[in-house]
């Protein structure tokens, strides 16, 4: 019987054709940030009643870094997600991905939302395989190498314990399982950037913590850059290298907090003083921001 992490390892071993294997301690390159938001503002609404959603925001995410964004509701966190992925163009400023200015949707991004956006007419496996049908270069290889991709998706499902549910429909799964499948779909094509928009918000506390561990494991192996938007401060501190606190609308960064808890983090670390200290710091800032 393999441990979870070993199984996770196996799922991604075949990954990067050619480039260096994504080792567990791949040092993030420091020279160029993967995501670079420069002085970005975004206005919602038409001319008559405009609303500033994001105000002159600067944000850098290093390659392989896990950043959590927290803030009071309505601070433009979800807008931030759309800006980073290029789904929404900024009204001023610019978004750079790997040093290139983003025009239109950015390639190589995985996204997961609070409501698992699994397609109800597809089985879990076929849902997880969706990115292969869309993202190049998988898209043009998909039909001829279907078996290989099925294998790949199944291996990933296995690492999150969903293999036996591969042929079930999403509505036959529990909320936690749906969310696991949802994260699998976001990661199966090995994106360099993962965007999580309150992915565990609708789950009960135990399931949520279970999925924190799953996310951490996947991240430790695959080392994609991650932006996690969440309401849950403990979730942010547990998972992230750096927590960013946004102010009430219009969203601006009011606090950046490095989380120097060694990895892999166990759930028990949430009861340690360093952890609660960081959570407290952040909570105070948010209370101030709502103020």
């Amino acid at each position: 019987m393999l441990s979870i992490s070993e199984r996770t390892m196996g799922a991604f071993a075949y990954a990067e054709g050619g480039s260096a294997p994504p080792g567990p301690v791949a040092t993030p390159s420091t020279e160029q940030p993967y995501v670079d938001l420069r002085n970005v503002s975004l206005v919602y609404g038409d001319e008559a009643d405009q609303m500033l959603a994001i105000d002159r925001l600067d944000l850098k995410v290093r390659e392989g870094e896990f950043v959590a964004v927290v803030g009071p509701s309505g601070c433009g966190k979800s807008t931030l997600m759309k800006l980073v992925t290029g789904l929404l163009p900024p009204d001023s400023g610019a978004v750079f991905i790997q040093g290139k200015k983003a025009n239109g949707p950015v390639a190589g991004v995985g996204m997961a939302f609070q409501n698992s956006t699994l397609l109800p007419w597809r089985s879990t496996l076929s849902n997880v395989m969706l990115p292969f049908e869309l993202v190049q270069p998988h898209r043009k290889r998909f039909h001829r190498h279907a078996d290989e991709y099925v294998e790949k998706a199944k291996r990933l499902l296995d690492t999150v314990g969903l293999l036996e549910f591969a042929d079930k429909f999403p509505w036959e799964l529990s909320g936690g399982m749906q969310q696991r499948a949802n994260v699998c779909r976001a990661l199966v094509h090995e994106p360099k950037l993962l965007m999580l928009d309150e992915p565990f918000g609708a789950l009960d506390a135990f399931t949520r913590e279970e999925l924190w561990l799953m996310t951490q494991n996947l991240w430790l192996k695959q080392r994609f850059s991650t932006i996690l938007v969440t309401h849950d401060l403990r979730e942010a501190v547990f998972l992230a290298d750096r927590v960013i606190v946004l102010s009430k609308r219009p969203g601006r960064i009011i606090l950046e907090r490095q989380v120097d808890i060694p990895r892999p983090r166990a759930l028990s670390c949430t009861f340690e003083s360093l952890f609660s200290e960081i959570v407290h710091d952040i909570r105070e800032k948010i209370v101030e921001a709502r103020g």
Partner: protein
Amino acid sequence: MSKSRKSSIENVMPWVTTLVLLVLWQIVSTALGSASLMLPAPTEIARSIIDHYDVIWPNALQTLYTTGLGFAFAVVFGMLFGLAIGASPLIYRGFYPLLIAFNAVPKVALVPIFVLWFGIGAVPAMVTAFSLAVFPIIVNVATGLSTIDPEMEDVMRSLGAKRLDILTKIGIPRMTPYLFASLKISITLAFVGSVLSETIASNEGIGFLMQAASSRFDVPLVFAGLIVIAAMAVLAYQACVLIEGRFTRWATRGK
């Protein structure tokens, strides 16, 4: 009550209610005595069906044929047009008011025009069936398409999906339950359309048969025609339900 017993009772319910209705009908029309000329008893209608079997059969086939063709055209056209207006806000804006105006026009008023254009016979019946059946299909298909979850669309776009991908991978599967719901309504409307047209201007079909029978004061035969149409409509409806169940199991959560 055990589960299987309950479901077997559910299964016989439609037959029970139909039987009760027929018995009541029989009692009323017997009680009416000579006035039952206007409301023939079910037994009398049944006898009329058997006696005039040779006339009813080809006319029923004719109605089934015009209805079926009109319905088939309505499905094809309704789907294409519904896809177009569901996928493009511009086409939606342009055509929706016209569609509503067209749907509000009484189709009885159109039949004489169709007759002028296509002559008496099968074609006007088909066109009338089409014109009644097409609207629910267009509206439902368009609704199914335009209610795609925006987050789902974001996920697709972030994976590099083009509009055609979103249409084929989300739009069309999502619209199927809406489409099948509309087929059930449309098939019955198609029967209404073809019989309507046959009644006004045709020399074949159940509508024509009923028209002819009523001018000869053969009331049982008029009712026989009604029963035949009703039976055909129920069968066609059931066929739609069967197909629906097959294609959209996910939408009913497999119940």
